[in-house]
């Protein structure tokens, strides 16, 4: 029932994808979780060719119970993860989610995702627009 509902939601929302904002989400990939790892990370690039700033406020995916927006940062040699409520993508700019920096963090699902699998994400922005993207599961960038 739940996957069906998610699929339905995706179908309903996909046509809205960036229609007004012109936001482009690409180069999406999910790092294959090592065996036993409880958390996974996803990376992508959000480009905003429009004239106004965009703000990413939430992400969901039918493959994961939760998707959190995080940033890894190393201060004085110590790496830490910071939870973000939102992420600004400036007009005519882009933000890259990549290893060691901004990333999406998800609890690993029961069935382990493997290289070659694909996962859908739906990115929600402050102006109520959404952009869907398909990410490949890979071992490295």
């Amino acid at each position, binding site marked *: 029932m739940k996957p069906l509902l998610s699929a339905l939601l995706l179908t309903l929302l996909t046509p809205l994808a960036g229609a007004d904002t012109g936001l482009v989400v690409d180069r999406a990939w999910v*790092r294959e979780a*090592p065996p036993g790892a409880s958390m996974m990370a996803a990376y992508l690039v959000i480009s905003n060719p429009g004239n106004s700033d965009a703000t990413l406020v939430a992400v969901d995916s039918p493959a994961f119970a939760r998707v959190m927006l*995080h940033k890894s940062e*190393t201060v004085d040699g*110590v790496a830490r993860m910071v939870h973000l409520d939102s992420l600004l993508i400036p007009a005519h700019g882009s933000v890259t989610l990549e290893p060691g920096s901004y990333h999406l963090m998800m609890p690993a699902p029961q069935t382990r995702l493997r290289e070659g699998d694909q996962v859908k994400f739906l990115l929600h922005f402050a102006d109520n627009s959404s952009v869907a993207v398909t990410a490949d599961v890979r071992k490295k960038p």
Partner: protein
Amino acid sequence: MSNYRPLLLLARIIPLLLAAALLACSSPQPPQLQQATLLPSPKPVAAFNLINAKGEPFTLENLKGHWTFAFFGYTHCPDVCPTALGMLGQVMHKLKDSDHLDNLPQVVFVSVDPQRDTPEVLARYVTYFYPDFIGVSGDPAEILSLTRQLGILYMRTAGGGDNDYLIDHSAAIILFDPDGRFHALFNVPHDPDKIASDFLLIKAYYEATR
């Protein structure tokens, strides 16, 4: 004027010759490194008692006789740790492919999260990145006794629940020499090419100055 030319030339060459002679006679110069920071003098490490992923002791003795890269993290870490371990896997493949290496370094992942990283969890986790990687953890006091000798820091941060916390931790990779001494460290960002080539230079300098 033209009479002075050979003299001038000589005046320019003599310091160069002197410098070359001096270089040839003196001991090898420390290598020019791209990413590693060499300790001014290698620091002996006091005894510690950790447990490897097979449940066997992992102590100072296990650092002796070969070079060791060590990284400190936890398996619940989704970004920094798999990135660093994947990178160290690449370093190992590069070193394995280089002709002049008979004794490959060992790579040790020290979990600073013994509460969740049991030996079984660690065993499956580390060998995913490279078959010979060693997973190590142990009693919190024993982990601390090693990390504080190396300047490695870690602290638990708030998470969703008792078993859902994150850990801030030092991102540096530590290099131990075959005498089991803290020899060098690699700060972020980690580049596998630079780390592999720095390692070979450090090893060559160590062997030339013994």
